[in-house]
């Protein structure tokens, strides 16, 4: 199915994710170089390129982190190729150090940066970041599509814009755009061959002062030209254009909710839909505001448009009431009903459906939470179990970003904080230095390569002694099993040199032990031993992600053991369920059982059962 993205058939209609539509749009624009670090809700962009890049004659890589991915894409663009770099919202934090100077010097071949925000955190922890501030900080044009078809069109437009103005262009999506599927009509694919070439031009690429001041002036000027260009763009349009007391300005996915809410209320008022949201098409906005007495800005997360538009109105001395975050919620993703309720207050018109009553009724429905859990057979579960057995409850546990953040939920309770990639190590070092407490930092394999190495070096360099447990499941599991430098395979499936984690750890100057977390006793003693160390010590807990293993086993037709609980031996202590917490184990009034459908055959539960009641099912 993925290969259908390469179809040469113009007019073909496929149901695509917003992310897939961005891939198709890039192909139609003639993209030549794609880099990314996997991060949901942007992951499928890289994942699709990983499948089609070779056939499409495009270079694709999973980079070690977003900063490196950004730099690689900039390099390709400096060499004259059209490049695309994709990341989730937090990725742009990592990459921003590079993005700002790249924008100053300007790109050559056309460079598009995709950043996918995740309001409500469907696929992320950390924060409800609104990445629309970056374009404003970096003088970078910003485009926000509302649906998959627009994703495709906006991507093509972004490449043209970038090429014409020699500046990187950011396309910002949100979960409900990136992960919405809808019919997308294909256009012509552009194929370009040949190598790029970097042309030396120090006046352009030198960011040292005083040249940096000249570059600053230049990028501000460029932004004004782009603003004029955006004034003409049909990507910004007005629905129900007429003189009216009330009107709405909106962008991105919120536009859809506005249309549905007005339909539900049976009201037609003018709506300005903005797609080019930085620099804002000022004249277009002024003309729209002049039609109205009162305007509501409907946007997800922060009042970004609202503040910009308030400035414009003030500068133009417009007599207009501007409302936004005093009616539209700031935290949590927007939904059609949230927008409907905001518009209903704005217009002072009651909806026919009684939402308040409905919500009151709904609050009475009591449903047990179903938080995401580590899979049956996940090697992280025994690792966490062993740490708790070995270190007790007093030790401070630094969590990090990956499947192992699920360890924060009971019964593992294996994280006292989770911040961002690499921060488990970084922060635990600070706690170690500031207190007499025992400290352990968890970090995944892909995260270690992404952000864990500088923090580990810092521990060694500054003589602290936390235990770092690198949970190595030989893949980037949470985002969909992408390869990383430790896997020996590149993004397009080619063999490459494996960077061995324990060698890297040794090179950083820390003691290291490699343990199989499926061996509970060995894992427990390794943790106990390492916690005694006066120096930084590292345990690499290595065992392949069970989902990957199952896929391979299925292909090779390997039958796995299934485990069962022998009721004669089980003394109903509950350790397997209440402390180990494998989702394949359940109980009723009579006893404890293993659901054969869910059991992935790791057999670790048979090691932790004190009465040896768990056995292989014959």
């Amino acid at each position, binding site marked *: 199915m993925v290969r259908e993205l390469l179809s040469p058939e113009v007019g073909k209609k496929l149901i695509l994710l917003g992310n897939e539509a961005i891939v198709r749009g890039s192909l139609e624009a003639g993209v030549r170089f794609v880099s990314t670090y996997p991060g949901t809700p942007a992951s499928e962009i890289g994942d699709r390129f990983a499948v089609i890049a070779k056939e499409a004659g495009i270079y694709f890589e999973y980079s070690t982190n977003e900063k490196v991915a950004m730099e690689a894409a900039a390099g390709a663009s400096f060499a004259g190729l059209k490049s695309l770099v994709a990341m989730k919202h937090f990725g742009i934090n990592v990459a921003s150090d590079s993005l700002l100077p790249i924008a100053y010097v300007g790109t050559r071949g056309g460079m598009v940066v995709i950043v996918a925000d995740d309001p409500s955190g469907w696929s992320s922890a950390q924060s409800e970041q609104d990445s629309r501030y970056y374009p404003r900080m970096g003088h970078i044009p910003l485009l926000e599509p509302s649906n998959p078809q627009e994703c495709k069109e906006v991507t093509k437009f972004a490449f043209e814009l970038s090429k014409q103005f020699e500046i990187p262009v950011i396309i910002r999506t949100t979960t409900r755009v990136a992960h919405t599927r809808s019919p997308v009509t294909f256009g012509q694919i552009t194929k370009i061959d040949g190598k790029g070439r970097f042309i030396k031009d120090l006046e352009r690429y030198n960011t040292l002062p005083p040249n940096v001041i000249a570059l600053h002036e230049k990028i501000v000027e460029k932004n004004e030209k782009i603003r004029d260009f955006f004034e003409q763009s049909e990507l910004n349009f007005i629905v129900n254009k007429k003189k009216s007391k009330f009107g709405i300005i909106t962008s991105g996915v919120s536009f859809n909710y506005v249309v549905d809410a007005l339909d539900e209320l049976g009201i037609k008022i003018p709506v300005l839909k903005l797609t080019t949201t930085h620099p804002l098409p000022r004249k277009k906005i002024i003309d729209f505001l002049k039609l109205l007495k009162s305007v509501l800005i409907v946007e997800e997360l922060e009042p970004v448009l609202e503040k910009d538009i308030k400035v414009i109105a003030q500068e133009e001395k417009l007599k207009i009431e501007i409302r936004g975050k005093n009616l539209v919620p700031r935290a949590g993703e927007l939904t059609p009903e949230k927008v409907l309720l905001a518009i209903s207050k704005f217009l002072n018109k009651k909806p026919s459906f009684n939402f308040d009553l409905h919500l009151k009724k709904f609050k009475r*429905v009591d449903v*047990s939470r179903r938080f995401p859990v580590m899979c049956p057979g996940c090697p992280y579960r025994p690792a966490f179990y062993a740490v708790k057995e070995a270190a007790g409850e007093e030790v401070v546990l630094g969590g990090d970003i990956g499947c192992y953040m699920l360890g924060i939920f009971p019964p593992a309770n294996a994280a006292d904080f989770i911040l961002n990639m690499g921060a488990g190590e970084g922060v635990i070092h600070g706690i170690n230095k500031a207190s007499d407490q025992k400290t352990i930092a968890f970090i995944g394999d892909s995260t270690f390569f992404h952000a864990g190495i500088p923090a580990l070096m810092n521990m060694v360099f500054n003589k602290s002694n936390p235990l770092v447990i690198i949970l190595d499941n030989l893949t980037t599991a949470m985002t969909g099993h992408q390869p990383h430098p430790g896997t020996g395979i590149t993004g397009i499936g080619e063999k490459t040199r494996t960077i061995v984690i324990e060698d890297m750890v040794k090179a950083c100057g820390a003691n290291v032990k490699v343990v199989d977390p499926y061996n509970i006793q060995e894992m427990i003693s390794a943790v106990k031993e390492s916690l005694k160390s006066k120096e930084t010590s590292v345990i690499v807990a290595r065992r392949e992600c069970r989902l990957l293993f199952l896929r391979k086993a299925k292909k090779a037709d390997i039958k796995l053991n299934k485990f069962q609980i022998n009721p004669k031996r089980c003394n109903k202590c509950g350790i397997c369920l209440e402390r180990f917490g494998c989702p394949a184990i359940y109980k009723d009034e009579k006893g404890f059982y293993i659901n054969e459908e869910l059991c992935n055959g790791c057999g670790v539960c048979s090691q932790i059962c004190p009465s040896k009641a768990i056995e292989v099912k014959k």
Partner: protein
Amino acid sequence: MKDFNIVIAGVGGQGILTLGYIISKTAMDQGFDVRMAEVHGLSQRYGAIVCHIRFGKKIFSPLVMCGKADLVIGLEPLEGLRNAYYGSKKTVFLLDNYPIIPVSVYLFNKKYPKLEEIGEDLKPFSKKVIFVNASKKAKELAGNVIAANIYMVGAAVSKRLLPLRKDLVFKNIKGVIKPKYYEVNEKVFNAAFEV
């Protein structure tokens, strides 16, 4: 036809997105505009999953408005109940009667409700609640509960809860599975029409 709104709820790993894709693709093949809202990543690991599908002449929002679902498909009964939010007096809930008990029930000493209790709790949010044997049938006919999603779409079509054509739905089922699984999936799909 006015817009048709579906909410599919279940547990990560049950094939919710596959089911959603089959429905969305069929709706497109029948000439409708479609939007389907998915969730990926974190929530997929045995967590509660919700997928929204809306189709009709011209669709904007990918999310179903609170109280506006025509059909809620619950691949797991408790997940159906969790999404009572989308139901109202015109909504049909089609639920697999096979519970997957969340770990939190054990950890916090809660009770997993009986199916009758789920039906009762859903009353203020529904026109009708229908329980079917999807997982049991899938296990019996395909040897694995994973085909329950195919039974559920069959049940929705056979009970006329979903204005989609049987032949096109099956064509699109074939579009997402390997040829060697056509036969068992056809068995499971057809079984939903026999009841």
